[in-house]
């Protein structure tokens, strides 16, 4: 709806062009839930570098973790990408990125299992994870490379009724606390056709983890994983041997849409807080907001946020129609993180010294910018992917 006197990006109604009353209701539920159960504690959890495990169960109590999974596993089968957009927006509103990365790590850990695994694994793993009782993670990236999935080096060889896994994984979200890890390993020859997915469980012998300290996303659990002759039962193979690559690919579109919507929501938070500050703060006898240099920054933020939001909703609509808009998603991810980078930078400038002090959303978001611009496909990889799709 047309913007007029600015209050907050988050106090506007959802566009009836894309959203129905279910999205509206879900937005209201998330707003209340996050305001009561999460937002008041984000600073504390960021400083502590973790968050209580009962947040998973609380999130499951409103249906957040079950969203998009089949009913037979206790899920709520809403496949509509606008639920993902609404969820990302509301999570972004509280400005607690790291927490949600860990809380939602199942959203990349489970889809390969859902797409490829046998019923036994699905029935054992999916229900407790989406009920918030167990945690799932995805482990693809290695110390030697991330986006170059086809050349990964972790090796699994058969020995009797087990695989013996050797190698390591890097930057793994929920890496310390997960119970189930969907791990990409090489079981065959070179390239994508030699890759399998294994379900590796927390207590398997030969599996250890080390926590990693990060620039941002402090509340998120991020770790390096090590496999030293780790014994994995053959029955933990997800799908068929040497056919794991497609399982890795199933994640990308929804994951990127989530990152896009989150990045733009965080840009909105930056602008909300910058506007509130500039309206209050007085310098040289007038409001900060009455200085042209500041007003133009806000206008520029508005311009970029509006454009990103419009394309986000259009792309989500294409996905809702069953299309696979790879070019749009790749380039939109670049646009969203560039918008976030700009808004975070300018918001910190507007807040001045206050923006440099820990304990406010803008400072935190500024530190989190890079993870959105790198994770789930870096800006460089995204441009390259789009260029390849365009067959230039």
């Amino acid at each position: 709806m047309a913007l007029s006197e600015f209050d907050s990006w988050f106090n506007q109604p959802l566009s009836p062009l894309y959203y129905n009353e279910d999205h509206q209701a879900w937005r209201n539920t998330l707003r209340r839930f996050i305001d009561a159960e999460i937002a008041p504690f984000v600073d504390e959890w960021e400083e502590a570098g973790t968050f209580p495990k009962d947040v998973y169960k609380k999130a499951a109590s409103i249906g957040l973790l079950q969203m998009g999974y089949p009913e037979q596993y206790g899920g709520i089968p809403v496949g509509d990408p606008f639920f993902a957009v609404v969820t990302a927006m509301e999570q972004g509103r509280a400005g607690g990125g790291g927490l949600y990365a860990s809380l939602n790590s199942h959203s990349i850990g489970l889809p390969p299992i859902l797409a490829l695994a046998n019923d036994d694994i699905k029935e054992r793993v999916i229900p407790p994870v989406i009920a918030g009782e167990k945690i799932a993670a995805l482990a693809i990236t290695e110390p030697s490379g991330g986006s170059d999935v086809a050349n990964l080096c972790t090796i699994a060889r058969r020995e009797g009724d087990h695989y013996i896994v050797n190698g390591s994984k890097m930057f793994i979200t929920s890496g310390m606390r997960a119970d189930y890890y969907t791990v990409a390993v090489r079981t065959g020859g070179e390239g994508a056709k030699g890759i399998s997915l294994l379900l590796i469980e927390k207590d398997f012998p030969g599996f250890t983890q080390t926590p990693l300290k990060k620039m941002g996303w402090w509340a998120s659990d991020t770790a390096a994983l090590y496999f030293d002759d780790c014994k994995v039962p053959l029955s933990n193979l997800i799908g068929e041997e040497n056919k794991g690559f497609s399982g890795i690919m199933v994640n990308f579109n929804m994951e990127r849409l989530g990152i896009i919507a989150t990045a733009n929501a965080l840009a909105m938070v930056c602008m909300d807080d910058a506007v509130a500050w500039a309206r209050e703060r007085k310098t040289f006898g007038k409001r900060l907001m009455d200085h042209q240099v500041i007003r133009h920054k806000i206008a520029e933020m508005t311009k970029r946020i509006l454009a990103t939001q419009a394309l986000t909703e259009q792309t989500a609509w294409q996905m809702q129609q069953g299309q696979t808009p790879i070019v749009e998603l790749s380039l939109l991810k670049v646009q969203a993180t560039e918008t976030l980078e700009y808004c975070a930078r300018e918001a910190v400038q507007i807040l001045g010294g206050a923006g440099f002090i820990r304990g406010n959303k803008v400072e935190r978001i500024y530190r989190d910018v890079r993870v959105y611009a790198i994770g789930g496909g870096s800006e460089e990889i995204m441009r390259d992917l789009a260029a390849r799709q365009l067959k230039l």
Partner: protein
Amino acid sequence: MKILVAVKRVADYNVKVRAKSDQSGPDLTNVKMAINPFCEIAVEEAVRLKEKGVATEVIAVSIGPKVAQEQIRTALALGADRGILIETDVAMEPLAIAKCLKQICDKESPDMVLLGKQAIDGDNNQTGQMLGALTGYAQATFASEITFDGASASVIREVDGGLQTLELKLPAIVTTDLRLNEPRYASLPNIMKAKKKPIDVLTTEELGVDVTPRTKLLKAEPPAERKAGIKVEDVAQLVDKLKNEAKVIV
């Protein structure tokens, strides 16, 4: 036992409401709307009574534009069984709302009507009391606890002097205060299930209620900006200012 709950569509509590530039009223054109928080407490109480086996059916009724169905759906997602929308685009005053609810009471014969003590838009705090007068039902406002004993209800209400307990014969009207309960979240599965619950749509004409406003809104404007305060030096200066400037003591 049948419980009727009234729910109102209002601007979300987060929204900073502004007056329209022509001062003809609050500007709600680009504003996130939600269920009135006091109404949500009323729905929660009704649903809890149903879960305890005291109530058998919970009906959520709203009066407003077509989109007010969203708020009925929220009530259904919280656990109400069915909804009634009295569709109107008129800006409804408490008396007109109470008259419409009276018609619904006549049709449905509820044992209890639960309403929020007030809505956060008009803050009128009148509808429940007016409905009490129109129906002749027993009435307790500002409830912080409701218990049942057969055909009567006991309501603890928050009054200026503390707490007052009222015994009510059913059917009764109870308006809810903040401390009655803490409403649950409408979970995603329940939001989806609520889609299957029926909502009847009626008009004010069908109910035979004249909803023409009795009052006229002359002008809506933001409250005057508060001036910065000062720090007084001592008690004597404070007393002097209260006496001579604020003129609140003599």
